[in-house]
């Protein structure tokens, strides 16, 4: 199917009405992708209990969003939920996992550790300060660990991102990452900038 997604835009676009067709196709594909986010069975620490397990369990039921089909193989998963701390030993493996996933792939970083290193920033020789040091992240879900409801909000944000931000015309181009449960008016860039300023005076490497 790669053929269709790659060649189609160039072929159809010049034809009269072609861009309408393309936009409709975009809408259908994005609808399908956003409603069928199959997560990879992957969790490193505490967040996995809340985000992968409790969220999928009876009370919260991730299945309502069609995202309960956790795939143990990265080849078949769409969504990599970085649930928990990433340490320096794990970092190459996380990258490998991400690379093993088939396009389109999405990443949600849940919890403080996966966003910035969380409680493990200072005096720590081992913890990577955020999953975005290693792989591109689409949605950040804050919390330590986030509640399942917060994770759902993150999933809904990701769905919104997919529906609005993707097109066959510009493959691979994504919307900017968002922080789920973000106070109004603050972007993730601002927060990252702030963090950078906090860390840099001490000669830290981000």
């Amino acid at each position, binding site marked *: 199917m790669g053929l269709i997604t790659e060649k189609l835009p160039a072929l159809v676009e010049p034809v009269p009405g072609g861009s309408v067709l393309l936009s409709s196709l975009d809408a259908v594909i994005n609808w399908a992708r956003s409603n069928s986010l199959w997560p990879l069975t992957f969790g490193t620490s505490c967040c996995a209990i809340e985000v992968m397990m409790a969220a999928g369990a009876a009370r919260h039921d991730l299945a309502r969003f069609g995202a309960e089909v956790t795939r143990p193989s990265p080849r078949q998963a769409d969504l990599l939920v970085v649930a928990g701390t990433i340490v320096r030993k794990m970092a190459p493996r996380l990258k490998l996992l991400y690379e093993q996933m088939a396009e389109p792939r999405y990443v949600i970083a849940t919890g403080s550790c996966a966003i910035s290193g969380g409680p493990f920033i200072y005096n*720590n*020789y081992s913890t990577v300060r955020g999953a975005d040091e290693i792989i591109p992240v689409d949605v950040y879900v804050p919390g330590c660990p986030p509640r399942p409801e917060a994770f759902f909000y993150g999933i809904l944000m990701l769905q919104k991102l997919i529906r609005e931000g993707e097109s066959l015309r510009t493959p691979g181009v994504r919307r900017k990452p968002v922080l789920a449960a973000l106070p109004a008016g603050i972007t993730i860039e601002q927060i990252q900038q702030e963090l950078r300023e906090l860390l840099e005076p001490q000669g830290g*490497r981000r």
Partner: protein
Amino acid sequence: METHELISAVQALEPAAVPREKVDRAAVVAPVERFLELMARLRDEPDLRFDMLCTHTAIDWIAEARLELVYCLYSTVHRHYLVVSASVPREAAVMPSMQALWPIAEWQEREVYDLFGVRYTGHPDLRRILLDDDWQGFPLRKDYRDDFMLEGPK
């Protein structure tokens, strides 16, 4: 057994052992030379029977340039504890392995080697356990520096 009884029992086995002060339970400091023999006796002596090595770790007394190796023993038979410690120099930290006495020591010693750099003689498989194999330095030593590490706000 009571604390003082335990200590005198250990001293009967190893006269050079001295009680370690300021520990909340029976504790002795033993010389490194005959450490393995002492530990073997502690495990097998019917009155003591320390059959479980609860935990093994090290303390980096950097001011005194020594590493204190702490062994916390427990007896499931008599239900008493004993903390045995020994000091090795920081720069040449070598210690006999307890792996033959308590199999779990194999991994606990690997951890202490990984984080403190203590070399255990007689250990079958001494390699890093928690960190990557190519890691430089021993992070739990007090003088460990790493340009990855950030110092916290005061």
